[in-house]
């Protein structure tokens, strides 16, 4: 009987069983009761896990490694990933300009260079913007434009107080990497805008 119910009965055993069940009422009843109880057990409807089951499991898991969630975030936001990689390279290349510590100055025939210091001689007027990198500038004369000093300072000597009048444009001193970056970005942004609006 159990061989039959296990589904592993040999054909000859099955014949013996059928023949016997026909003639033996006790065994027939026993067999029917077994089949009935199996059917009853199978009949109990299938239950389902509560709706928030998966969420609860995930909430109770030990914390996931940060690395993975970052990776997953990247793989889900390919555009932002590209953008952030781009900005990393941008920053790196802009910063590499910053890290160079050679003295350099905007070329201008009226400027005098002396020991890493650009000098606007007295009585002279320099037309155009001046950028000094890794050095100082002393303005004794006048500048018809803006002055930007990166990694250095504006030395004005005695006429310090009058400096505002001597420079027609803006005076900017940049001494931090971050400021440098900001300056570069602003610069790029401005020239892009100019390009777009056709100013230059």
């Amino acid at each position, binding site marked *: 009987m159990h061989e039959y119910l296990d589904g592993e009965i040999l054909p000859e055993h099955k014949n013996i069983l059928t023949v016997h069940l026909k003639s033996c009422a006790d065994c027939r009843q026993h067999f029917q009761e077994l089949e009935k109880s*199996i059917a009853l057990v199978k009949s109990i409807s299938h239950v389902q896990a*509560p709706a928030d089951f998966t969420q609860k499991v995930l909430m109770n898991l030990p914390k996931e490694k940060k690395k993975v969630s970052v990776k997953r975030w990247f793989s889900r936001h390919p555009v932002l990933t590209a953008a952030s990689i781009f900005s990393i390279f941008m920053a790196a290349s802009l910063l590499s300009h910053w890290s160079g510590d050679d003295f350099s100055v905007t070329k201008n025939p009226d400027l005098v260079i002396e020991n890493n210091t650009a000098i606007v001689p007295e009585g002279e007027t320099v037309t155009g913007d001046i950028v000094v990198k890794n050095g100082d500038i002393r303005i004794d004369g006048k500048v018809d434009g803006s002055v930007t000093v990166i990694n250095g300072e504006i030395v004005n000597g005695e006429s310090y107080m009058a400096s505002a009048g001597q420079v027609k444009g803006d005076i900017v001193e940049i001494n931090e990497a971050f400021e440098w970056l900001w300056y570069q970005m602003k610069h790029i942004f401005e020239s892009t805008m100019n390009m777009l609006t056709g100013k230059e």
Partner: protein
Amino acid sequence: MDEFVKSRIKQVRKGDQNAFGEIVELYKDKVFQLCFRMLGNSHEAEDISQEAFIRAYINIERYNIDRKFSTWLYRIATNLCIDRIRKKKPDYYLDAEVAGTEGLTLYSQIPASQLAPDEEVSKIELQEIIQNEILKLPEKYRAVIVLKYIEELPLLEISKILDLPIGTVKTRIHRGREALRKQLRHI
């Protein structure tokens, strides 16, 4: 589906919990059902099936990826259920003979009204009765009966889940069936 599960598990091993979420989705009903039929109440069933998934996650490195994942998972769940049943075992048994009586057990003291043959039993009541009868089985028979007739798993898989020889599984199924027959024949 096996390929899907395998790829998810590889993700889980790298620490990806969302991939594990997909595995939970796939098996939650089966595991919950197994626990519910073993334990008989949905609170405990939820507790234990939650625990089973969390243990699977923690021990995922120990899972052999060339074997069937569901077998491993059912094994964790079944073991947890059996542990729970053993812990909460009452200090009396319905099967035990009542002192001073001959052959009378606590079963015979339960009012039999709900089993009256002429009374019409609704489907829900019937399900409760069947569930209760399953719960009366000792846990070693209960496990095989639930795995065989509710989860409808083949004998070979049951033997792997319970880590028992097939012969033992068969014997337990036979005994479980006989016990159920006695309990259910009057319905």
